[in-house]
């Protein structure tokens, strides 16, 4: 990644005695983030009387569920030291493919299959360029970011696809039970799956190993290229899932769909405590970060704050949560 500074990063002291697990948990990133989330939650419920309504809260989850699903896969990719900036464009391409298929009368199962397949194909192309040809992922995915959305623009131009089958609306508009939306169930399910994958499997350990030192990982028998390729596939697949949900929720496809989401997804991942240099991070952190971002945008929305001001808050939050601990450490010496 860009901006590494080995001269400073290399000097790390090893303490004589580890702090107790309870103290460490208390000082962890996730705890800090959880405190921030709670503070925002309380501030929101004090600021607006409409905030604590279960249906409103349920609506608020749509702010982040689709982005968070991509963020889980992106977290693994960033921990492994790579990045994918083409996720939002993958959504556009997958959505365009689904729209084209819907015009031909393909039913809901077929549409979902097409959305996921296009997502996988986009991820496979990124992965092949990065792992097969050894190219830097940031440039490759800036390229495919233009390419994938560009294809959507070629197909659609200034037009839009509508006319999705009625039962396709379930993914983005349906409810599993009471106020729990179908999307939220998917979000929780994927949080669990990716949490297990990263924190409880050999594959997850390999992801950390590669992010910390890919050369050492290769020497200890990890197939670095293969693991990275799978991570690109997963990120593509999750973009496909997000495309299904978003298309279903909006009920239409334009080539500008999900514009700028790649930045929000990366923000969510970094806010969740994943090191942009790779090697560190956790899925619970990303889950809490998703809630933080969702609560901030929803709370500000209830206060009639325009979207662009919310994006300032998100941008400032991103820099502040990374800068403050560093300032604190500097100040304490």
């Amino acid at each position: 990644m860009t901006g590494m500074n080995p001269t400073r990063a290399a000097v790390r002291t090893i303490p004589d005695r580890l702090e107790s697990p309870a103290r460490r948990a208390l000082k962890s990133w996730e705890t800090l983030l959880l405190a921030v989330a709670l503070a925002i939650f309380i501030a929101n419920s004090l600021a607006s009387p409409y905030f604590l309504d279960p249906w409103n809260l349920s609506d608020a989850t749509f702010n982040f569920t689709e982005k968070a699903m991509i963020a889980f896969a992106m977290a693994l990719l960033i921990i492994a030291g790579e990045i994918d900036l083409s996720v939002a464009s993958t959504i556009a391409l997958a959505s365009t493919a689904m729209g084209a298929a819907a015009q031909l009368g393909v039913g809901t199962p077929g549409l979902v299959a097409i959305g996921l397949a296009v997502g996988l194909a986009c991820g496979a192309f990124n992965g092949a360029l990065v792992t097969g040809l050894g190219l830097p992922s940031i440039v490759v995915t800036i390229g495919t970011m233009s390419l994938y959305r560009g294809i959507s623009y070629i197909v659609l131009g200034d037009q839009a696809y509508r006319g999705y089958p009625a039962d396709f609306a379930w993914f983005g508009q349906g409810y599993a039970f009471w106020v729990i939306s179908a999307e939220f169930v998917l979000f929780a399910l994927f949080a669990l799956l990716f949490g297990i994958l990263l924190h409880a499997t050999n594959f997850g350990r390999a992801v950390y190993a590669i992010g910390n030192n890919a050369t050492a990982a290769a020497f200890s028998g990890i197939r670095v290229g293969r693991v990275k390729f799978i991570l690109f596939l997963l990120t593509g697949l999750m973009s496909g899932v997000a495309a299904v949900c978003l298309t279903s929720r909006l009920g239409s496809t334009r080539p500008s769909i999900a514009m700028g989401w790649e930045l929000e997804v990366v923000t969510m991942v970094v806010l969740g405590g994943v090191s942009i240099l790779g090697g560190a991070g956790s899925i619970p952190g990303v889950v809490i970060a998703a809630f933080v971002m969702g609560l901030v945008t929803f709370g500000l929305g209830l206060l009639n704050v325009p979207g662009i001001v919310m994006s300032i808050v998100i941008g400032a939050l991103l820099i502040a949560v990374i800068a403050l601990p560093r300032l604190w450490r500097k100040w304490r010496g």
Partner: protein
Amino acid sequence: MRLTRLLTTREALLAAAIALMLALIASRFPAFVAPGNLVAVFNDTAPLIILAIGQMVVILTRCIDLSVAATLALTGMVVAMLNLAHPDLPVAAILAIAVALGCGLGMINGLLVWKLDIPPIVVTLGTMTIYRGAAFLISGGKWVNAHEMSDAFKAFPRTQILGMPVMSWIAILVVVVLAVLLARTETGRAFFAAGGNPDAATYAGIDVGRTRFLAFALSGALAGLVGYLWVARYAVAYVDLAAGFELDVVAACVIGGVAIMGGVGSVAGAVLGALFLGVIKNALPVIDVSPFWQMAISGAAIIIAVILNAKAGRARGRIILRQTEAVQ
């Protein structure tokens, strides 16, 4: 031997590709290569050229500046509103304010990277939304339209000198100054050293953090300059000005052979990369291809360029361990 090496450089290949493209277009539409139209194409590409050079310096130091388009928009909005409030402010003052403001915004990026060691991609992702948001806050989302700008403000970038608008001349000036700065000054060489091998640069007595800070300040100053030129030339300022343009700027650098891992790049390459995109953008409507093709074409161009870059980089040394190369 020397000649063949010169002819197979990145820059020569890119120049040949642009010439070939122009020849192909000229065979069907001779008017496209008329001097007047070529000047128009160059002038249209001038903002991209200026920004690509600033971005190249940042990338040389192993950083990236995603906030250039937002810096451009904020500076453009500020000078447009300033002109609205004080129509008799001379253009020289406007220019100075634009460059200073852009430089200040770039210095904020640079300080966060230098003093707090935050990865540049994170810093500029954040400031990108903050700067554009600030443009919204100061303008309240309103546009500054042509009739609200003073005539001198609008006329400056379009003034013709020796058959070319001032905007083109400024781009040429920036190209020359930066080429000399990078090749002939200590700071210029430090940009290459800081990105090529930060550890070695540190041992050689170069303050890598400070060098990066200077690169961001320079990129910001150029973005501020373009902010005024852009707003004056199109005679309109609004919040979404040049939205997404940072990617075109990075694309121009990559196509021009600037290595994203730092240390490798040239002013000529960045200029040619920008011209490559500029010629495509201007040629599409002429050859009757929908402008909707442009995005996919520049995406494909980036991917092809980065594959070629990697090939060129490989040929230089023997790879002992494939994996380490992939990691870096």
